[in-house]
């Protein structure tokens, strides 16, 4: 139970690489904060600084208002789930989970009670006598979770804990992690580069790019009001269509059907906000388009079209009956359009 406050945190690695360039995040008690961003943007580095595994070059990290910069990982009272799980290979599942409690001098019967209780929650009870190498990937993942939970730490840290699982298991574990985190009420920081995981888990979503925070806040707010083209194309799948405009014209010279706000040089709309019609609607954006590809995925289909001099994606529900080469009109309502300036920042 703790708040985590990062103030202008920087990390310069000994080689001179500046991996984190001034990040400030305030995580309230019991909240789950998800750090998301492309590979190499400094997510792991930031998490490892919160864990105390990397020194903080500049700025402060505070738990419950107390600066912990100089406190080592051993005393920070955090628990971490690693991407490769980092289970102790020579110890049984039971000992893997008991290790942290033993190191802190917890009485034996209490250790036993807590380990068994945690094992029950995670459905690991029948595996306590096995060694990590005798477990499946999913079971190992649960043990890694168990090892973190059993300690009842101040803060949970997760570094891409689900990326080694198959899609189905990942979906299950995602729900479980969310429920566990809610039930235990432990402040958590979760690193992922999977935007679906980020959207579904986060209380606070932090989108990072090149060592900086691009946008931070409620995940749905970020989805609806991306602050930059980077966020717009990173959050949401498939990503937002971004069309450059100059003087009311697209790159192929065709005119824009509506007027752009002042300073806007990029028009964006999400595939799911667009629609295809035979006749142009009276309001909103309309684009003549030519179908180049159809991707049916069951409940919905993605149409890949050539429009305004580039490739755009439109989501249509159900099965798309469009032929390749068919001409149609793509439309999007005004309130679902996003405008960005020449630096990629949101306009309006």
């Amino acid at each position, binding site marked *: 139970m703790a708040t985590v406050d990062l103030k202008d945190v920087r990390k310069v690695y000994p080689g001179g690489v500046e991996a984190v360039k001034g990040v400030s995040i305030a995580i309230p008690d019991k909240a789950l904060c998800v750090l998301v961003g492309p590979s190499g943007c400094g997510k792991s580095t930031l998490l490892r600084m919160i864990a105390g*595994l990397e020194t903080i070059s500049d700025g402060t990290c505070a738990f419950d208002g107390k600066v912990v910069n100089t406190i*080592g*990982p*051993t005393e*920070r009272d955090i628990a971490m789930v690693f991407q490769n799980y980092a289970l*102790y290979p020579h110890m049984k599942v039971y000992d893997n989970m008991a290790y*942290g409690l033993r*190191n802190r001098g917890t009485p034996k019967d209490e250790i036993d009670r807590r380990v068994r209780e945690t094992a029950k929650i995670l459905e690991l009870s029948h595996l306590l006598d096995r*060694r990590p*190498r005798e477990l499946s990937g999913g079971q190992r993942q649960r043990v890694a979770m168990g090892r973190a939970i059993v300690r009842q730490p101040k803060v949970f840290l997760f570094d891409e804990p689900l990326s080694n699982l198959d899609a189905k298991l990942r979906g299950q574990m995602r729900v479980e992690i969310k429920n566990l985190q809610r039930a235990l009420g432990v402040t958590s920081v979760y690193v992922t580069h999977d935007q679906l995981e980020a959207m579904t888990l986060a209380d606070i979503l932090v989108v990072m790019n090149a060592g900086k925070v691009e946008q931070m806040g409620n995940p749905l707010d970020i989805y609806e009001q991306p602050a930059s083209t980077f966020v717009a194309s990173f959050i949401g799948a498939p990503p937002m269509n971004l069309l450059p405009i100059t003087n009311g014209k697209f790159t192929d010279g065709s005119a824009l059907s509506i007027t752009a706000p002042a300073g806007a040089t990029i028009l964006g709309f999400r595939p799911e906000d667009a629609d295809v019609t035979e006749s142009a609607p009276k309001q909103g954006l309309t684009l003549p388009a030519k179908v180049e590809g159809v991707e049916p995925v069951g409940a919905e289909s993605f149409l890949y079209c050539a429009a305004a001099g580039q490739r755009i994606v439109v989501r249509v529900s159900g099965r798309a009956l469009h032929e390749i080469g068919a001409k149609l009109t793509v439309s999007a309502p005004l309130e679902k359009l996003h405008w960005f300036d020449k630096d990629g920042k949101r306009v309006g």
Partner: protein
Amino acid sequence: MTPRVVFPNKILPYLLVAPQLAITLVFFYWPASQALYQSMLREDPFGLKSKFVWFDNFKKVLADPNYINSIHVTAIFSIATALLSMVVALILAVMADKVVRSRNLYRTLLIWPYAVAPAIAGMLWLFLFNPSIGSLAYALRWMGIPWDPLLKGDQAMVLVVMAAAWKQISYNFLFFVAGLQAIPKTLIEAAAIDGAREFKRFWTIVFPLLAPTTFFLLVVNTVYAFFDTFGIIHAVTGGGPGKATETLVYKVYNDGFVNLILGDSAAQSVILMVIVIALTAVQFRYVERKVHYG
């Protein structure tokens, strides 16, 4: 599984392994069988004729108090050498593992002793600890320790153990460094987060995971101490003073080549062979069980 290679020719496979077989036969099985045969012969005092005496030589050797002493000496010498060289190597390896960047320099420096011939390594230590001219002997005397390995048996033992261990440290060091680097860094980090301080981490995580390396080195070092230390003992103490540093191998040499009691010497080498086979078997059977591989 890779498909089995089938040779169309029946003789070719045998020809291909023939060189290896020939070497093994000529340099191992033939001398071993010669030793076995010789160990059952007894020569008359003038070396003119020999007679087949079955196991009489073995009875005689095993009843000899000098031989029992030699077993004693060998046990102490081997255990001390293996332990000393492995402990020192491990400490150095742990330190080197931490100093990430100068690691290569460390490695190069610490491999040097291994390139030195045993007899020279022995001489070096002999000089250092020579009662009259050795600088370390001087330091010891200055500290009030009456140092004279040429007269005092236990000091002679300390000297040969140090000389023998010193040579093996660099070898052990390389293996320990490799072993340490094979341990995933995240395990150490996980243990740190789990509240284990450095010393605790070493004993509960690093050392158990290093067990395969340690086990391998234990076998190698024991065999080294048994067989490969002849040069050092010969150079430093010559088995003396008295018979304080006369190990089994050294006694084989002494009895066979110095005193020319060939039958006894052969019997001793057969016993030695049996001991080493037994030792290795025991190590693999019992010690390996406690080792966790991955």
